[in-house]
């Protein structure tokens, strides 16, 4: 327990400190980490799988793995925010395991992109944006899973290159090149799907 009726001390405790406490047996601290990270993890998985239910299952899977493998957490090693890097590493493994099991199934149904269009926009703008979102969804779907992953981490999750490098075990320069190539492939697929209109 970190104290404070208003919970402010709970909020300011770093992720690394909380995970160290979980590792040392204070399992309840995982609740704070869950509250901080489950939404961004859900969006990470939703961008990758396109399925709400699957994404929720994967978030649950990640937190179960964090509990199960808590003894392997070593905060002192990583760059900025090593808990986040470790957690996304676990998330990538969970996604890859899921992907191997489900290989061949149709992916990225429409529910990934619902809410990507503001309901306050005018109807015609809304329609156009929905079409663009749909094209992007299909373009993203056509990318190999590794490229989709680096793009989601970098562009949608706003993870720093250093963090992605720590998660994937490569140099920062390699991450940058991969992001370039993923965007290039996405742009080409988008262009092809739009019938050369872009």
């Amino acid at each position, binding site marked *: 327990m970190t104290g404070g*009726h208003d919970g402010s001390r709970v909020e300011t405790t770093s992720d690394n400190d909380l995970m160290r406490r979980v590792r040392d047996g204070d399992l309840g601290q995982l609740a704070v980490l869950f509250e901080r990270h489950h939404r961004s993890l859900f969006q990470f998985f939703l961008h990758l799988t396109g399925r709400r239910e699957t994404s929720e299952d994967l978030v649950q899977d990640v937190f179960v793995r964090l509990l199960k493998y808590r003894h392997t957490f070593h905060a002192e090693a990583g760059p900025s925010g090593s808990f986040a890097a470790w957690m996304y590493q676990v998330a990538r493994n969970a996604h890859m395991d899921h992907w191997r099991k489900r290989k061949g199934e149709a992916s990225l149904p429409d529910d990934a992109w619902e809410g990507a269009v503001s309901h306050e926009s005018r109807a015609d703008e809304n329609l156009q944006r929905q079409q663009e979102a749909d094209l992007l969804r299909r373009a993203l779907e056509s990318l190999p899973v590794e490229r989709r992953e680096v793009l989601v981490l970098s562009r949608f999750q706003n993870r720093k290159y250093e963090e992605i490098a720590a998660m994937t075990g490569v140099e920062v320069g390699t991450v940058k090149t991969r992001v370039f190539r993923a965007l*290039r492939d996405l742009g080409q697929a988008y262009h092809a799907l739009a019938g050369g209109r872009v």
Partner: protein
Amino acid sequence: MNCQQFQEHWVDYLRGEGDPAMAQALENHRTACGTCRRDAESVSAAWQALSRLPEFAATPSERLRARFYDTLSGYAEGLADSRRAVPATAWWRRLWPQQPVWQVAAAAACLLVGLAGGRALGPFAPAVNPEVAGLREEVGRMRQLVALSLLQQDSATDRLRGVTFANQTVMNTAVTDDAEVVGALLRTVNEDANVNVRLAAVEALANASRDPGLRRSLAQSLSQQVSPLVQLAIIDLLAQARDRQAAPALRSLTRDEELNVAVKMRAQRALQQLGVQ
């Protein structure tokens, strides 16, 4: 600059990062290299399309949070149970007979010895294993943290769930210090926007009503409450706790001309129950 370096730095350039010398080198390479020029156009097209997308607003369902807390709670309790269990040792396994008939006989003998021993040692309280006590405390602390976390959520469903966890903590005060949780429940009674959450918090606090400080705070809260339902619940709690110190607060309710009639009558009845009218 070569094509590899171009690929490495072009996205930073699109983001407006990097120094002017790098920007110039990138532009020079783009002009000179047809492949990189075409690649850069594709990257820019994807970049712009992604930028036009509004903020991604999808959020998980409430079910995810419920599943997580159930799992965490179950995991901690399962861990406590498994540590409590005494592992079989190699010498004990060697003593255990292999034939089912002898196994049944040995089990019956153990049962008889256990019953006789239990009868003989009945008056003595069993010693509490310190490790088990520590684990119980750990589970209690976890519930406490979960309760405090849930009580701060935006969703009323989550806060109701937080009240449930808080109630478990308050009922289990033998292993945890519940002052923090009681404080959070009291804040919920006074400040929560949802009347159902406030009502549930009052019910949970009934388990801690032996605390005179808490009863004083609840009596003060009576005049702040806008919901007659919550006022009725607090009056009942104070009456059941036989708290005569609550009389002034109850009396001032009976004098309030704008107060709900049912609340006023319940306050009068409570004063009669306390014998202070």
